[in-house]
């Protein structure tokens, strides 16, 4: 199993541009999450999903959108990128156990 796979690993965006961060998991987990991690800080929850077709806002959802059309995929959409969205983004999933499996992250810089 590959676990949780995130693409791209790095991206530089100009202010106002849009992009989609991809996340896929092959563990058949129902629950998926997007977190952001700012330098020297812990992780903050952006959005989460408890199954295909169901998504909910986390602590810091503004400026982001998600969709969950399949169990495997949970893309995160940034519209009108802003410098405040410069961060490292982590996708995660969980199954019966309550702990999360994390991907390797996407480092995004908005200039």
């Amino acid at each position, binding site marked *: 199993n590959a676990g949780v796979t995130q693409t791209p690993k790095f991206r530089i965006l100009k202010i106002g541009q849009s992009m989609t961060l991809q996340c896929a998991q092959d563990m058949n987990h129902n629950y998926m999450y997007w977190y952001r991690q700012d330098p020297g800080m812990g992780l903050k929850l952006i959005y989460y999903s408890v199954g295909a077709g169901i998504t909910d806002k986390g602590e810091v959802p503004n400026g982001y959108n998600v969709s969950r059309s399949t169990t495997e995929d949970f893309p995160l959409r940034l519209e009108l990128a802003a410098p405040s969205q410069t961060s490292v983004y982590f996708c995660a999933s969980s199954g019966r156990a309550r702990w*999360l499996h994390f991907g390797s992250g996407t480092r995004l810089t908005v200039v």
Partner: protein
Amino acid sequence: GESVGLHLPTLSVQEGDNSIINCAYSNSASDYFIWYKQESGKGPQFIIDIRSNMDKRQGQRVTVLLNKTVKHLSLQIAATQPGDSAVYFCAENTEMYSGGGADGLTFGKGTHLIIQP
């Protein structure tokens, strides 16, 4: 504000010594706690978890202690090795959907464990 936090941002220990990383939480409704290890440039990696009906849980070279009275969590690493150098996060969960899973974890800021030779 954050409901989960750590006492020290950096902890320096000698190789071979035991390490103790502390965490305080404020939500008394939290019933599940996890420790993660994050190496530079990588995603967080699960180390060990503990439920609120337990006081102690041991893994390989790691022990987690939970004191619900003072809302304190600690991670003990025995015989610290260079490979233990990382940032350690505690995380908590307060809700759970029936049948398992979670609606997301709340993370502290992390403690950077530095191993001195």
